[in-house]
């Protein structure tokens, strides 16, 4: 990932140590992808095998399978190594089906839009 001098070799921030591991990739649009890292390059372009998108709405979650993914590095925020000895999600969270999580996502989006439009209508009142 970097032009390392001899003293830097031990210090390189390389994704090589993450190869063939199951990872969590956070994207700039807020999506969370999980998958096994198969390839990467200096731009943090990444190939994930067996990728799925973990959608979380409140206490509900669902893993939507995606297959083999190539992610352009500019969209990558963070790549996290999942510790197999720890629970991936808090115990109180409930796994639901894909249609159900999509419904929950839509409801959340509509609630946010409603809040946003109500705020816009109130803004002209200049209450604060």
């Amino acid at each position, binding site marked *: 990932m970097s032009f390392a001098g001899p003293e830097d070799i031990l210090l390189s921030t390389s994704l090589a140590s993450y190869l063939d591991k199951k990872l969590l990739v956070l994207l700039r649009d807020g999506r969370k992808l999980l998958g096994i890292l198969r390839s990467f390059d200096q731009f943090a372009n990444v190939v994930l095998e067996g990728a799925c998108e973990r959608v979380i709405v409140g206490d509900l979650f669902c893993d939507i399978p995606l297959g083999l993914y190539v992610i352009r590095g500019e969209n990558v925020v*963070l790549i996290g190594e999942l510790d197999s000895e720890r629970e991936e999600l808090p115990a109180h969270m409930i796994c639901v089906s894909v249609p159900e999580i999509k419904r929950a996502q839509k409801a959340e989006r509509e609630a946010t839009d409603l809040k946003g439009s109500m705020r816009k209508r109130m803004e002209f009142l200049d209450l604060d």
Partner: protein
Amino acid sequence: MLFFSYFKELVGKEVTVELKNDLAIRGTLHSVDQYLNIKLENIKVVDEGKYPHMLSVRNCFIRGSVVRYVQLPPDGVDVDILHDATRREARGS
């Protein structure tokens, strides 16, 4: 190169990285590269209730382009050395 060298001195120290998406992560600085990509170990997410998906993540790689701040321990910096290095770099370029 200055900040790359500066961060290399901080490897092993505990830092808090705040990202542009407002996620803040505390951890031990494992490594850094010329793009100021950061690898943290033994991380703890600030306000972890808001980010349940990060629960089992112990180590992570953070792309340099998404970092807003890197918060350092107050005694982690020798300000005078940093000043000198900055003056040297400014003179050189």
